[in-house]
């Protein structure tokens, strides 16, 4: 009974000694610090020691006096990440850890794709934003990003998205009218602008007419347009094809000022067709019916 009591008392004394040592060697480290903020680390005890703050983002070393507070001035610790704190004294080593979190959003990386696309395309434009603070740390706390796509003529499209792990994205429709559009992403005071070129889509209207021109036939299209009424760009190839008595003539003509025109042989009963890309226009039978 007596020996049990002695053992219990011994344990209590040892435990209290451990507690005292732990308190004597305590290293007070904040749990989190915002990037660029000042940092102070409090140590206990006496004597000289070396303090290490180590992470893949930064490494710091200071000779310190135990029992004093070590200050790191604002701006010294500026890379977000997980840091180990190690205090190496003459007879003991203390350690701790803390996280540096990103400061408020100050910059963004904005990727808009594609830079050129046909008009009237649903969800055709994508925008991705990565949000950074002033120290190029990814801001992992949710931030609201506003996206705005404004064409020269046409309604403004606006979307908002919350970042998740520092990234937000959206999709927009291209406008019905061709022309450049400004795509702006904004987070707080930081903004990025990209220019999206909206070009006419596939042809939707292709109609030609024919008239005699001396011994030949002059064929000419009406202005070639897409489904939204935008004129197809000059240089787009239009193919005229004439078939007659087992023979065939084909002429490729680039659009000039939205119109394609050429001369073809005038055979009675010939069939003349017109096409651009995969879109086929009207057909004319010369001589018998027009």
């Amino acid at each position, binding site marked *: 009974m007596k020996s049990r009591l002695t053992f219990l008392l011994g344990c209590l004394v040892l435990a209290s000694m451990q507690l005292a040592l732990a308190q004597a060697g305590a290293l007070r480290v904040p749990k*989190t610090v915002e990037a660029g903020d000042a940092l102070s680390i409090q140590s206990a005890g006496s004597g000289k020691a*070396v303090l*290490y703050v*180590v*992470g*893949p*983002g*930064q*490494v*710091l*070393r200071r000779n310190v006096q135990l029992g004093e507070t070590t200050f790191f001035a604002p701006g010294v610790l500026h*890379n*977000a*990440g*997980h840091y*180990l704190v*190690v205090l*190496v004294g003459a007879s003991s*080593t203390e*350690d701790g*850890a803390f*996280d540096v*979190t990103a400061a408020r959003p100050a910059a963004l990386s904005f*990727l808009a*794709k*594609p830079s050129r696309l046909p008009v009237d395309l649903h969800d055709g434009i*994508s925008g*991705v934003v*990565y949000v950074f603070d002033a120290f*190029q*740390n*990814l801001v*992992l706390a949710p931030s609201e990003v506003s996206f705005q796509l404004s064409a020269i003529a046409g309604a403004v499209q606006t979307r908002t998205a919350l970042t*998740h*792990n*520092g*990234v937000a*994205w959206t*999709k927009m429709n291209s406008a019905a009218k061709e022309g450049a559009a400004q795509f702006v992403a904004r987070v707080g005071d930081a903004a990025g602008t990209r220019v999206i070129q909206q070009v006419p889509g596939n042809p939707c209207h292709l109609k030609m007419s024919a008239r005699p021109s001396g011994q030949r036939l002059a064929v000419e299209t009406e202005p070639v347009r897409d489904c939204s009424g935008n004129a197809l760009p000059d240089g787009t190839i239009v193919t005229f094809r004439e078939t007659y008595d087992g023979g065939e003539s084909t002429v490729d003509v680039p659009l000039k000022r939205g119109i394609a025109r050429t001369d073809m042989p005038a055979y009675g009963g010939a069939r003349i067709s017109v096409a651009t890309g995969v879109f086929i226009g009207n057909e004319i039978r010369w001589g018998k019916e027009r």
Partner: protein
Amino acid sequence: MKRSLLIGCSLFAAILALGSDQPAVRVAPTDSLGPRPLEKQTETAVIRDYLQAWRSLSGAFEQNRADLLDPDFIGTAKEKLADTIREQAKLGIHTRYRDSAHNIQVVFYSPEGLSIQLVDTVEYDVQILDGKTVQTTQHVRARYVAVLTPTEVRWKVRLFQAKPE
């Protein structure tokens, strides 16, 4: 007979030792990636290159050689890690990072396929050496957010940052 048994045992032990150097890797299923589906082949390539990046980081920090980061890091991640290595060299410090376990989840694949983001709960040991003296060895469990972008032949880490748990 005894000799061949001894060689066989040594070989087995060597294989085990080599095997134990490799971190345990678990890839969590991708829930919602956002706008673009992720092909299995792409996921495999991204994970492979990300794990390789950890090996590069480990070598670069141990030897204080920022050039070892070149094959696997790019942009901000490379600049920041290289700055730390330069700082280590200036202070006469080396750090040994030994990753032992990764629990990876791909969380975002951008619509145009130019960036992929993953979150990794990683366990690693860090050994801090001042000169040739080992000051401490710490076991760390941390969450890292990494953004990788495709280059000519591989995915490279462009952003690499620990996230508070």
